[in-house]
């Protein structure tokens, strides 16, 4: 077999193993290294809900997919070019994700009778049983080789076995021509203080894995993926949850208000609370509440007291917060509620991704209860989405629901670091002026243009007033007057709709009129963009519009939609956004493509669905 070094545009690698095998770390290291090398990239962790699911079983398989390329990469990729499977269960769970041309790298030592039985294989040959025997199979005794590599390290057997992933990573680095220096630096940074003794053994096993891969003849080809042409500047890798937390901190700085986050741990949103808890040096206060309701209620209290108040959660937590969210609507207080959506209903699929909370966000409260809704479209975009959500909340005196997704929260991508000087100041409508003798502050008197009320914060002399859940008139006095109620209901809705004057218009990627417009919202952006580009590469013309603002929608939405014969709305639910659009724009011919499997779209399925409507 003639070994070739092939220069390729992009590759997808899927690392899979037991949930304790360190596959998330292996995948992230590969991703970080590739980012620094200059590749475009996108990642997708796919892990079980259990921390240590039963060893060796299919339900306990943890996966991490990395897509790297020499151009822009918008998705973690549908199918992989290399599957790393650390045990039979990992192979079984992931074989279906292999391209016909894929390589499959397995740890031969794990494929003993016990491992095969645990994974539920019926025959002796797992590859034929899974119909992947024609792929390029690299069967390496990784456990034995790792033991051999570290036999003189002085480490015990358990510690040595934990290094298997480094051996594997070394092999993957050989296959994709990755320099090892970055990983060396990572190991030194990570362990120099607490466990300096593990640095050298890890380096050795990484290097031995690399050399092993170079020496065996089993690897048909190796690949180079040239750096992507990128804008100049300083970059970093960032996950969606981290970007959300940082966007909120940025809003705190630009509004000159302390950030308060009251939250209760919930997958997959917890990392936002954890991230904010680190950054007390920026004045952030975090309160790990006794439950979801206390999370939002402490935030509402903090908002009343004049902080930039936030609560973070996922679907079931949002259900618990519904009543309190209504209180924030009624009291007209600024509040950011972040919902990192996961598979539902109920506990559902906690570690999987969906867009199934849109209906809840729009309608999930008693009474006529409008909140603004913003959606993030990529991991790094969570920064801007969080910043903009906070800006809207503070300047329009309203709760804002920021919808992200498990896919975005846990996914990562390289990010050209912005300068805070590029971001606008945030100016909340604080009550100003001096009240005349005997004059009372009227908390619900509104700005004539924006319908926004003024914000008087406890401690401001003379502005004492009461807010609460009961209906009031503009003066803040309780009222059950029918006409007043009708007026206040209409004004609260109008206030939210007026936000449309302050957000960007909807952009169309491609011709502004035509036969078919592809529409999406939130975290499906990358997949939709890739699908649209694939269709264009086939020589067809197609237009694409993606919504970052759900409520209110951009002002030009009706105009954009009206210029197409048909609109196909693609989303990871049964049609929540398309039905909202149908209600708002009854004359538009909407088609829909939906998926509710707890998984992101595949680019190919979108290409097929869109092409069918063309």
């Amino acid at each position, binding site marked *: 077999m003639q070994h070739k070094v092939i220069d390729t545009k992009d590759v997808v690698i899927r690392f899979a193993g037991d949930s304790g095998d360190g596959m998330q770390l292996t995948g992230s290291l590969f991703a*970080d290294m590739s*980012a*620094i090398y*200059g590749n475009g990239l996108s990642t997708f962790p796919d892990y079980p809900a259990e921390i240590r699911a039963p060893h060796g079983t299919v339900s306990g398989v943890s996966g991490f997919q990395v897509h790297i390329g020499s151009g822009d990469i918008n998705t973690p990729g549908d199918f992989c070019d290399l599957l790393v499977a650390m045990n039979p269960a990992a192979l079984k769970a992931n074989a279906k994700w292999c391209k016909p041309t894929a390589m499959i790298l397995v740890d031969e030592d794990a494929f003993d009778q016990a491992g095969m039985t645990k994974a539920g294989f019926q025959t002796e040959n797992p590859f034929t049983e899974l119909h992947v025997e024609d792929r390029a199979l690299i069967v390496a005794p990784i456990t034995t080789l790792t033991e051999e590599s570290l036999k003189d390290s002085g480490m015990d057997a358990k510690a040595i076995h934990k290094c298997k992933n480094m051996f594997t990573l070394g092999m993957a680095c050989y296959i994709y021509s990755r320099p090892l220096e970055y990983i060396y630096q990572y190991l030194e940074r990570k362990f120099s203080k607490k466990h300096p003794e593990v640095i050298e053994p890890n380096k050795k096993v990484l290097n031995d894995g690399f050399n092993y891969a170079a020496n065996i003849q089993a690897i048909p080809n190796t690949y180079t993926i040239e750096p992507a042409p*990128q804008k*100049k*500047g*300083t*970059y*970093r*890798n960032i996950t969606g949850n981290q970007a959300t937390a*940082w966007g909120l*901190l*940025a809003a705190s700085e630009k509004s000159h208000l*302390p950030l*308060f986050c*009251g939250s209760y741990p919930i997958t997959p949103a917890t990392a936002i609370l954890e991230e904010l808890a680190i*950054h*007390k*040096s*920026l*004045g*952030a*206060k975090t*309160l790990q*509440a*006794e*439950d979801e*309701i*206390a999370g939002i*209620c*402490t*935030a*509402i*209290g*903090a*908002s*009343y*007291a004049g*902080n930039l108040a936030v609560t973070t959660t996922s679907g079931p937590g949002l259900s618990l917060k519904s009543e*309190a969210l*209504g*209180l924030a609507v009624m*009291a007209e207080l600024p509040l950011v509620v972040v919902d990192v959506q996961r598979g539902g209903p109920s506990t559902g699929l906690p570690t999987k991704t969906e867009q199934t909370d849109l209906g809840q966000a729009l309608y999930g409260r008693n009474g006529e209860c409008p909140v603004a809704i913003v959606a993030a479209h990529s991991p790094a975009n969570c920064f801007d989405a969080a910043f903009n959500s906070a800006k809207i909340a503070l300047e329009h005196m309203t709760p804002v629901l920021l919808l992200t997704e498990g896919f975005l929260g846990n996914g990562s991508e390289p990010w050209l*670091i*912005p300068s*805070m000087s590029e971001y606008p100041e945030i100016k909340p409508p604080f009550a100003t002026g001096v009240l005349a003798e005997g004059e009372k502050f009227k908390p619900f008197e509104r700005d004539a243009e924006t319908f926004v009320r003024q914000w008087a914060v*406890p*401690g*401001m002399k003379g*502005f*004492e*007033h*009461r*807010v*609460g*859940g*009961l209906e009031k008139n503009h003066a803040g*006095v*309780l009222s059950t007057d029918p006409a007043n109620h009708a007026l206040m209901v209409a004004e609260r809705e109008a206030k939210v709709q007026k936000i449309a004057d302050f957000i960007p218009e909807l952009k169309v990627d491609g011709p502004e009129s035509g036969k078919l417009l592809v529409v999406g919202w939130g975290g499906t952006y990358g997949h939709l963009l890739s699908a649209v580009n694939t269709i264009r590469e086939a020589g067809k013309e197609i237009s694409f519009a993606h919504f970052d603002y759900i409520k209110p929608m951009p002002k030009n939405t009706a105009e954009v939609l009206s210029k197409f014969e048909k609109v196909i709305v693609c989303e990871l639910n049964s049609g929540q956004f398309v039905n909202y659009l149908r209600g708002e724009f009854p004359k538009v011919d909407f088609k829909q493509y939906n998926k509710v499997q707890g998984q992101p779209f595949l680019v190919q399925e979108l290409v097929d669905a869109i092409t069918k409507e063309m």
Partner: protein
Amino acid sequence: MANLTFKDFKSDQEVRWCPGCGDHAVLAALQRALPKVSQALGYEKERYVVVSGIGCSSRLPYYMDTYGFHSIHGRATAISTGIKVANPTLTVWQACGDGDALAIGGNHFIHAIRRNIDINIILFNNQIYGLTKGQYSPTSKFGAITKTSPYGTVEHPFTPGSLVLGAKGTFFARSLDTELKLNEEIMTQAALHDGTSVMEMLTNCVIFNDGTHKDITDPAVKADRTIVLRHGEKMIFGKNHDKGLILDGMKLKVVTIGEDGVTEDDILVHDAHSDYIGIHMMLADMKYPDYPVALGVIRDVKDVTYDDGVRDQVKDVMMKSKIHSVDDLLHSGSTWEVK
């Protein structure tokens, strides 16, 4: 600083509690206590925030001319917590009922106490749901006949004091709605206390639970069936000031001075500041007819508060961290240059 009087704390809103409701007197006591607190601590009126949940007593913020937040059922404690953490210079008072604080809001109540956040909670305990017109509450007596227990309840009530002390509360006081002077005194002490102060007010609901506390509030028997505890004073009570409490083995015992050789020297002295929570637990748990019901400040001890902890940690990390702006943050950790 202006000299504040009770009038400064009265809002222009018409008070809508039923005539004869115990809540009127508690409101009056609060409006009289706050000027004294302001005087003692140099607080301006705009520093006060009065928070409530849902229920009859939760209407109270509308009747106070302060910043106020009438929130949702059970959640007042969480909202108070957020206000205090967000701005520790504010003085937070909270009004809540037995259903509000101990049923739907029980979780927030115990966790605020556990954290020892510096808020002042007035717990109006009339042992009934009044605003929904007469259903039993978590403090209704076992067997209580109400609209939702026509044959009597078959569940034990909470003793709020036991709950507070069980959560290692640092301040607990109890009183009767009509004890205006004592209530002013209790409220003033609560304001001076750093940490969660819980004041249980035994209130009478004239419509749905009239006379629920009459075993101890009836003027003819009150002196013999209640004891007002004051720090440093002997635990003496009774119409004739001749009854007292002593420790008999592991239990409290009611004795009569001058009988069986008991002298005043034998009577316990109340130590509200004692670290030992056991004695406070026994005092809070005393019930008629075996014991007089304890009124006054039963426990008042110093401990770290949550709001101070949060504030100090932020200051500490600010001093130590290298990240002082979002630009610093964005460039922290692993980054790379594209030239």
